[in-house]
């Protein structure tokens, strides 16, 4: 009897293994109901919600881990990793993988998702002018937006490292990251703003006027260059991200290495290319991957600035349009899948880094 109640006895373990998941579920369900039905003051509610969200998740891990730690070593080794990745896998599986699989399925069906059409949607994506220009624009975004963001980020990180007002410069470059895309849209509309007549309140047109040029409708009429004007916004926002991370890892380059190179007579450019770049290569890969992926998915800037008009449509906005506005589930899904295929090279690059 006493044995049974010992915390490491098998029946007790089985009991605990059932109790902890159900207990967790029950408690969080009650809390959920509490929040749904409560009429508390919004400030208090916010504080309680934050508390629940943060402490709650931690205790889930803590309690599961506590049970698993009681298991025999062999069992523990097998199960513990799944406790660690479990919540991530479950959430991703539910909220992203399943929808993606569904999208793949829809991409082989017609607009109303009734008839199987084989690869017809894929053919259309690469032939229909509207869809082809969508893909072209996405390429432009990656080619210019992602590359320049990374390049500027690296350049500024290096410069900041050597300058006497690093902190403030970094803050300024990073600040656009903190700006919502809606706000950024407002900011840049002010720059590209065009109005009939010779009073221009848009900065770029005012500059054009000052130099005797003709005011332009930057984001609409100058096709296909209008895409580049939108890409500038991305560069303005993303460079800060790249810079912060590069800057941190540049500081990790050991001083001895740099000193040794200088003693050998290498100039700063040489040091940059043959010491710093190789040293931070894994960071560059990570940052580039993140930015390329972000750029492939670009949605808000285009939506806010042009709504995808004037031939500035990109895959995500076109998807949104086809799927939710035209209700053409076939085209919409196909576009999303093309995006997924486009990322394969990036995955391959990253796998080389993955610890075997």
């Amino acid at each position, binding site marked *: 009897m006493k044995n049974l109640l010992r915390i490491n006895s098998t029946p007790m373990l089985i009991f605990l293994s059932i109790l902890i998941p159900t207990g967790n579920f029950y408690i969080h369900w009650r809390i959920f109901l509490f929040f749904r039905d409560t009429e508390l003051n919004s400030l208090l509610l916010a504080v309680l919600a934050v508390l629940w969200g943060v402490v709650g998740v931690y*205790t889930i891990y803590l309690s599961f881990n506590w049970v698993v*730690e009681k298991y025999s070593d062999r069992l523990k080794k097998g199960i513990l990793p799944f406790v660690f990745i479990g919540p991530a896998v479950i959430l991703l599986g539910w909220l992203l993988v399943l929808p993606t699989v569904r999208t793949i399925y829809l991409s082989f069906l017609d607009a109303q998702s009734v008839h199987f059409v084989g690869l017809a949607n894929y053919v259309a994506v690469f032939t229909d002018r509207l869809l082809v220009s969508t893909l072209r624009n996405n390429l432009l975004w990656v080619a210019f937006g992602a590359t320049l963001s990374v390049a500027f980020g690296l350049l500024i990180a290096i410069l900041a490292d050597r300058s006497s007002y690093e902190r403030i410069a970094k803050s300024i470059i990073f600040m656009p990251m903190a700006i919502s895309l809606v706000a950024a849209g407002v900011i840049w509309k002010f720059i590209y703003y*065009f109005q009939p007549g010779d009073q221009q309140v848009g900065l770029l047109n005012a500059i054009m006027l000052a130099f005797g040029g003709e005011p332009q409708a930057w984001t609409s009429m100058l*096709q296909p260059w209008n895409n580049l004007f939108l890409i500038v916004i991305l560069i303005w926002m993303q460079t800060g991200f790249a810079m912060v991370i590069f800057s941190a890892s540049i500081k990790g380059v050991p001083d001895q290495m740099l000193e040794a190179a200088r003693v050998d007579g290498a100039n700063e450019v040489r040091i940059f290319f043959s010491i710093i770049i190789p040293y931070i290569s894994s960071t560059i890969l990570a940052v580039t991957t993140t930015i390329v992926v972000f750029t492939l998915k670009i949605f808000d800037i285009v939506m806010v600035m042009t709504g995808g008009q004037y031939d500035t449509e990109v895959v995500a906005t076109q998807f949104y349009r086809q799927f*939710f506005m*035209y*209700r053409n589930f076939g085209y919409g899904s196909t576009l999303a899948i093309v995006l997924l295929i486009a990322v394969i090279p990036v995955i391959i690059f990253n796998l080389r880094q993955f610890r075997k």
Partner: protein
Amino acid sequence: MKKQWRKSVVSVLSILLIFTLIFAGCGSSATNEPTDEPSNTEGTATNDQPQEQPADEGTYLEQAYAGKFKGTKVSMFGPFADADEVKFNNSIKEFEEKTGIDIQYQGSKEFEATINIRVEGGNAPDIADFPQPGLLANFVKSGKVIDVSTFLDGSHLKSNYNQSWIDMATMEGKDGEIMAGIWNRSNVKSLVWYPKKQFEEAGYTVPQTWDELIALSEQIAADGDQAWAIGIESGAATGWAATDWIEDIMLRTTTPENYDKWVKGELSFTSDEVKNAAKKMTEIWFNDDYVYGGRKSIVTTSFGDAPKPMFDNPPKTWLHRQGNFITSFFPEGLEAGVDYDWFYLPSIDEQYGKPVLVAGDIYAMFNDRPEVRAVMEFFTTGESIKTWVQSGGVIAPMNDASLDWYASDMDRRMAELIQNASTIRFDGSDLMPGSVGAGTFWKGMTDYASGTVDLDEAMEEIEAGWNK
């Protein structure tokens, strides 16, 4: 290490305990109270049809006024926000106070996309406001919309609405035709606005024919101004203002039958009739002497900002073709009928008479509950829009809306215009399925106006919207 573990165990248990005490404790007391079901009852209400009421209890609206649905909530979703939302809330305030039904309206500029997501996701609002019946038709086809004729009194509707409104509300459902919704607001589109005082001072006269209209544009150009204020920018909906032009010209250059065929997709965009209309439009649009700021300002100017230069002193531009709702975009402090007025966009070909283009908002119902029925019934009464009519910018389609409500003579003249029209047609792009009417048509016109594509390409791309 063992000691540490004991510590962790204690902390796990105590945190869990605290949680249980704080939340589950209050939670259970809260759940025991009779709380209102969340307003978006997740479509469950659709399944349990409310029982047919015995006749003596009266219609749902009468029951509502008797306080039977007190404390219930009805969720609404629509495209108008900002000032229109305030006007809407004002117009339902009295009803809410009398009946105790809380109508929760949410407006979003992303309405067209979001309503799709919400309906597909099973989280449809109780009532949705569609400015485009074509968009609604999609949902009707897939059987997601409640047939309002099942509970609304047909004879009342017939007496309160012009037959054509009722016809337009009747749509092809999954199992035959249903009445998909009810019309609550309407507006007139074939209007040309002008700054009256200055217009008269400059010695211009209101044109009666298309030729006179072009002559007027020419005269204004000779005086050194660009006559037309045109702007079609409207975020993701950019281009809709251009579709109105095409429709208005279509009605003036071809038969109403052709117009109807075109709206149904039987007459192609690539046909001569449509191309002619587009060419007629570009007589004005692509003439940089006629358009304020020239062609490039058409696509960059927001439709709401476009008319503003008419009210500079002296006016920078003189004419603006737009529906009656545009007055709420005019600068504040202008007096209707004095500072600005409208004239009818003149006919082009005598034989097609005096056609008028109209549009309106249809309210459709997605969840069937007694209180939603009551609210829908309320919306068929002129009363439901009275204060909005009084504050201007909207025309009531119901017959029991009194002409006395209109804020100005100007609005009353619009009502007369509709009465005297030889042909009344509804905004075609709004009737076409969403993929054309709110899709390729908008986009094609924008691309054409901005010079991305030429006329033939534009029309082909618009037509392609039908095939999807």
